[in-house]
């Protein structure tokens, strides 16, 4: 920390960068966001709760939260599996699969939306076989879940992957020497290590899914009370020129996403502090070498 204090006096541009950064942040993000809260303050509490707790709004929360939770849970299980396979095993096309994991970040949501709808529509590539066994994916809550699983897919993979890469094989060797089976080693040694990172990814995927709009509306069917997600309800109210109603629900959503930020930040800190602790503790050999390396990097 002493170094940082010393450097502060030498490097230029602090005032300029901070000034511009904060100005731009206020202009684009903070002032418009506070406009939303100002607008709600013109509502009375009674009006606010009337909108936010209306049956149609409650039905949309149930769908949005439920489908997001299921989607994030699917991604938790399969994300850890995919990260494990990508880090530990070799197979043809591994690099291709690794880079395609980020596709949901890069593919515009509208494109994902129409593609998923076409696949799961009753006459689609997967929709037809599913319909044959009586499962209707498109235009149902299942379709919403599929879309939300798609957009949250990279989060768990990308949070767990670096932790698995850093993991020293000695931990597993020690477990094996002490007589643990492979499954025991995984559930008792590996799983606790990757758990904070996996949970971080889960929370991020969940938070992203709640606000998602573009990829869901095509596949959802958008029936009020049944397949209408919360962001769509906001748009519907806007199109009916019900600005106060739209704002009330938007503020409720904003509060939920800000509240979600807190556990995500705590999880992230937990996960990175776990990683920092694990490293030097692995083996006596690693313990003597690694601090020397990290100090050298800091010189």
């Amino acid at each position, binding site marked *: 920390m002493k170094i940082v204090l010393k*450097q502060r006096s030498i490097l230029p541009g602090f005032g300029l960068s901070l000034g511009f950064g904060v100005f731009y942040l206020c202009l684009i993000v903070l002032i418009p966001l506070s406009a939303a809260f100002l607008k709600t303050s013109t509502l009375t509490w009674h009006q606010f709760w009337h909108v936010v707790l209306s049956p149609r709004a409650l039905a949309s929360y149930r769908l949005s939260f439920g489908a997001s939770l299921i989607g994030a849970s699917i991604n938790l299980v399969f994300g850890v599996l995919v990260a494990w396979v990508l880090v530990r095993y070799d197979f043809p096309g591994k690099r291709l699969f690794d880079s395609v994991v980020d596709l949901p970040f890069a593919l515009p949501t509208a494109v994902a939306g129409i593609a998923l709808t076409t696949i799961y529509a009753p006459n689609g590539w997967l929709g037809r076989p599913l319909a044959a066994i009586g499962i209707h994916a498109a235009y149902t809550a299942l379709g919403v879940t599929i879309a939300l699983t798609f957009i949250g897919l990279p989060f768990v993979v990308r949070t767990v992957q670096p932790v698995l890469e850093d993991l020293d094989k000695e931990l597993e060797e020690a477990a094996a020497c002490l007589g643990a089976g492979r499954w025991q080693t995984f559930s008792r040694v590996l799983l606790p290590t990757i758990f904070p990172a996996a949970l971080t990814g889960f929370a991020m995927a969940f938070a992203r899914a709640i606000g998602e709009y573009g990829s869901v509306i095509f596949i959802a069917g958008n029936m009020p009370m049944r397949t209408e997600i919360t962001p769509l309800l906001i748009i519907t109210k806007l199109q009916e020129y019900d600005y106060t109603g739209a704002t009330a629900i938007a503020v409720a959503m904003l509060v939920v996403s800000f509240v979600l930020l807190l556990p995500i930040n705590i999880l992230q800190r937990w996960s990175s502090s776990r990683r920092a602790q694990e490293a030097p503790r692995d083996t006596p*050999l690693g313990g003597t070498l690694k601090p020397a390396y990290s100090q050298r990097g800091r010189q």
Partner: protein
Amino acid sequence: MAASLQTQIRGTLAPRSGAAARAISEPTVVRWLLIGIALVFLGTFLFLPLAIVFATAFQKGVGFYLQVFRDPDTLAAIRLTLLAAGIAVPLNVVFGIAAAWVIGKFDFVGKSLLITLIDLPFSVSPVVAGLIYVLLFGLQGLLGPWLIAHGIRIIFAVPGIVLATIFVTFPFVARELLPMIQSQGNEEEEAALTLGASGWQTFFRVTLPNVKWALIYGVILCNARAMGEFGAVSVVSGHIRGLTDTVPLHIEILYNDYQFVAAFAVASLLALLALMTLLVKSVVEWKAGQQFAAQSASDTESNS
């Protein structure tokens, strides 16, 4: 470097026998089963959507595909998207560099608050992002009456689309640059300044070359999101064909008009953009890895 040394030592001390290797890996059957499940999962969720975009786009042949791009509404949508991204991306690059410089190189009170605020647009639903601009600049908005009096249109016009695009792509460049700028440390900049370089010289000749790969990836990601944004832009656009329709909104209109092949033809353009983004990411990661290896190697030399 330390890692290679470590493996060397470890190699001489305890050569791993076949039995030891087997003790810390899974039986072949389990291994292939896990690989199989992972690939089927990625295949259905990632490759299938990509495949259907291109398969449907070319369903009526290349001639029809090309004809879609001669439609004046499609061309207008492409122009508007290029304009919005052309304004939003450079502004966010300047902000991203300024923010990463201030957070990465200095220690000051309120730093973690600033990081949280920069991340804020990530956690706001795109629909809500569009709505906040409607509440500020719309007819019934806070500044609405003043804007009407002065004949300025922001909502349901191009400025609103640009603003919404800036909002949703706000954190990308800063987020990609920050870890890179932080990990570089301040030594090289200090050396440059001590040798008499000016602040801008130091930035352009020392800092920028060190973080250029992260910057390129940040710009590409920011651009992909700017061109593909749907929810936020949909709220502020007003959907006037040929005037306030961006490419993603145009896809929605075509799709809802049951012009599926045309919708997918336009969508294939954005899918190509996404594939290019992933390609650049792979290249950037590879280059950054090379740079890191080279730095570690020179560190070893200077230390030994």
